[in-house]
């Protein structure tokens, strides 16, 4: 980068791992650095304006649009991305419910929705339909019309409350 884009160095804590970021332009968003520097492509770049929720991550446990966060500003924060929801071959009950109910079509909004929903069910484990709709209203989906997504959350909520589908590493 040329001088007015002077590179800086900082560290990021992502999914429990510390990463040293070097040769980074100060203006890079957390979303860009997660994707293009750390290869964590699960967070998606649909509007990059904080409107669609596709890039949702948790920062110190708080839901955030990573497109609106300067990466260098996120140093010292505990960042969790979609990649941290389930290990290797496992799935959370919400992820399983998404597949079973047809909540996934193109799948571009899916990672952001899953981060949002996992966070939501932590605070409201047994939501009603209206609460579910409001909770995901910051995540745009263009394929599904949201019906299958709402149903997936209902099913996952029931399974979590009855202790079924025991592979949920996030809760």
């Amino acid at each position, binding site marked *: 980068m040329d001088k007015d884009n002077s590179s800086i160095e900082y560290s990021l804590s992502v999914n429990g791992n510390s990463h040293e970021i070097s040769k980074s332009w100060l203006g890079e968003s957390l979303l860009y650095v997660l994707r293009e520097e750390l290869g964590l*492509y699960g967070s998606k770049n*649909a509007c990059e304006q904080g409107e669609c929720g596709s890039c949702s991550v948790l920062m110190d446990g708080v839901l955030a649009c990573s497109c609106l966060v300067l990466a260098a500003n996120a140093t010292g924060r505990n960042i969790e991305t979609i990649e941290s929801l389930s290990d290797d071959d496992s799935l959370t009950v919400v992820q399983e419910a998404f597949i079973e109910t047809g909540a996934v079509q193109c799948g571009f909004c899916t990672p952001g929705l899953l981060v949002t929903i996992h966070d939501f069910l932590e605070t409201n484990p047994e939501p009603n339909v209206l609460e579910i709709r409001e909770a995901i209203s910051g995540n745009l989906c263009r394929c599904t*019309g949201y019906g299958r997504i709402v149903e997936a959350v209902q099913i996952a909520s029931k399974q979590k409350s009855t202790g079924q589908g025991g592979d949920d590493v996030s809760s």
Partner: protein
Amino acid sequence: MSVVDDTVEAIPSGIGVSAVRPDGKEKVKGDFIFSSDLSSEGMLWGQTLRSPHSSARILNIDISDALSISGVHAVLTADDVPGENIFGLERADQPVLANDFIRYAGEPVAIVAADHPEIARKATDAIKVEYEILSPLVDSSAAITAKAIHPEGNVIRYLNIVHGDTEAVGDVIVEGEYEVGMQDQAFMGTESGMAIPSPDGGIDLQISTQWLHSDQEQVATALNMPIEMVRVTLAGVGGAFGGREDVSMHVHLCMLALYTGKPVKMIYDRNESFLGHVHRHPARIWYRHHASFGGRLVKVEAKVILDGGAYASTTSAVLANACCFSIGPYSVPNASVEGWGVRTNNPPCGAMRGFGNVQTCFAVEAQMDKIAKELNLDPVEFRLNNALKSGDTIITGQEITGTAPVREVLMSLANHPLPGPSSNNLLELPGGTGRTTDGSHVKRGVGFAASIKNLMFSEGFDDFSEARCIVDDGFIAIQTACVEVGQGFVTLVQQIVQEILGIEKVEILPADTSIGSAGSTSASRQSWMSGGAVMKACEAVVNSLISDLSNEQGVSFERIGTVLVAPDGSASIPVSDALRGRNYDETVVHRHAPTVPLDEVGQGDAHVSFAFAAHRAVVDVDEELGLVRVVEIATSQDVGRVLNPVQARGQIEGGIAQGLGLAILEEIILQDGKIQNANFTDYLLPTAMDTPTIEIAALIEEPEPNAPFGAKGIGEPPVISSTPAVVAAIRDATGLDLNRVPIRPEDIALG
């Protein structure tokens, strides 16, 4: 050989079950690779400089400052296009990079490759373009006779349909004028891809698209490269809805990669995505309906003007749909329909889900309600009186030889129970928690609408799809060039293999141009076309297997389900068992029945098959605020056969949400041809709070003759009549005319 006994359980798979997506697990884990997730060692980032003017002449382009920026590897303009500087989906009329005139705001002028996306952006800013700004032509009606803005003239297509006695007069005459705004596909994953130069001098293009082979052809022409040197591979697609049918960054990426000798990646941001793909045609529509006192349609007159924007794209075909189906799913003895698809300096318009049928359906369904009111008939009853049925003739003189369960669709929906009143929860009132009134002006309305959609490509297009079934010691791989955009074709492939070969595990090979074309993922055609091709490829494998078994054992088996059975019943073996230890490789091409072009009065068997749907919307409207809450949308749809219940529901719910969007939220706002709201803050997409519960009253399963598995395409009908149903419901609540969509709050509050 094993003999199957009666105790073997049927496999719970195949056609008709809710099989889950094979890519679902990758998608929920964030592991699925979309086109924007591509990465390659030493790759550069591409960026496009676009015209800020909607009509201009380019006087000079100075790239020297841009080239001098450290980290910039290429700055290319029209002079650098290796082949013909022209492309287009139906006809080549659009420059790859503008070289003389600018015809829309957002037209690409130059492209850049650099080490970092921000350097690439700075470089495009540093390109100096001198424009002579011209007065833009933005009025679609004026465009018909205005001075041509393109060497091919302003009228892309004029279509005249004359049917029956055009002098016929009805007892009741109802006239109306309607307008449809410009809708955006707004797929979540913006345009993105990567081009990699290959050692043989060719190019590998990985791209999110809808039609690999159309891309390949257009790219090869622009690059002046033999077609086989351009290899196009599908990269993960984040939705499409018609907006990826046209070439966008394809040639630009290849030019930059060939020039620099390096892989080049490009991602449009959301603003550029609005500039970088075609939109739904805005429409101006006039109707005059004639009906008898007995409640039958006598004649329909219509004039339709579609604004194609600066370049043709699919305007001709969109206009044909708008006009051919301008009557709706009804039988009319006499009709006179004129349509113009015109060129303006507005952004180019082309394919979007519903493709022409959406525009006239909104208007004609309003007309149907008006006549019913005039005749003092129930809107559903009036529609039933005039409903098309199999054996009827549409206004193009074509007889419907397939199924047309319009009555069944209408009846099942009309009989579906209505929802109860909303609660007093603020979230259940129009405007949600942000509302500023006491809710005393909230009124409920119910609206009804029905639609017809042609399936697959029409008007004599040679429409086909190729599929290959490879058997390697009982393991199955399927290859097609069919693009998965999220609709679930990959699920269907597995179901077809299970249905015919009885084998659960199927490898789906990447979609690319190493196999013949599958045509576009559009026009509700891929289940029929590529699904049919996969079915036939599997059947070809079975036929080869039967032939081999016959030679080896002297028994001529036939396939019953997934089992091969000897004619005398003496022996049987599952296909899957018989395939063990054997290898086959069968490629087949599947075509639908041929169609013909429309003649000079719009007559001819131009279409393949027709699908019908109806929607009923229930809305609460706050007349004081002009805000609408759609409480429920119920639907019945003619589907032929349900191939996968969950995926069918997904198509229906998703399509209805887009129809709701056009009714009350979504419009690209233009000022002098320039988009004023190219972002998701100002272009309003339905959220989970805007989208109601969708009630499926009925899926009418009357198998369509000649359709693989009897199934009709289901992707488009949900988006077509959902819009007029919502509008009819708002009219019902408010008593307003509301002849334009999307309906804005001021249309209601100040109406």
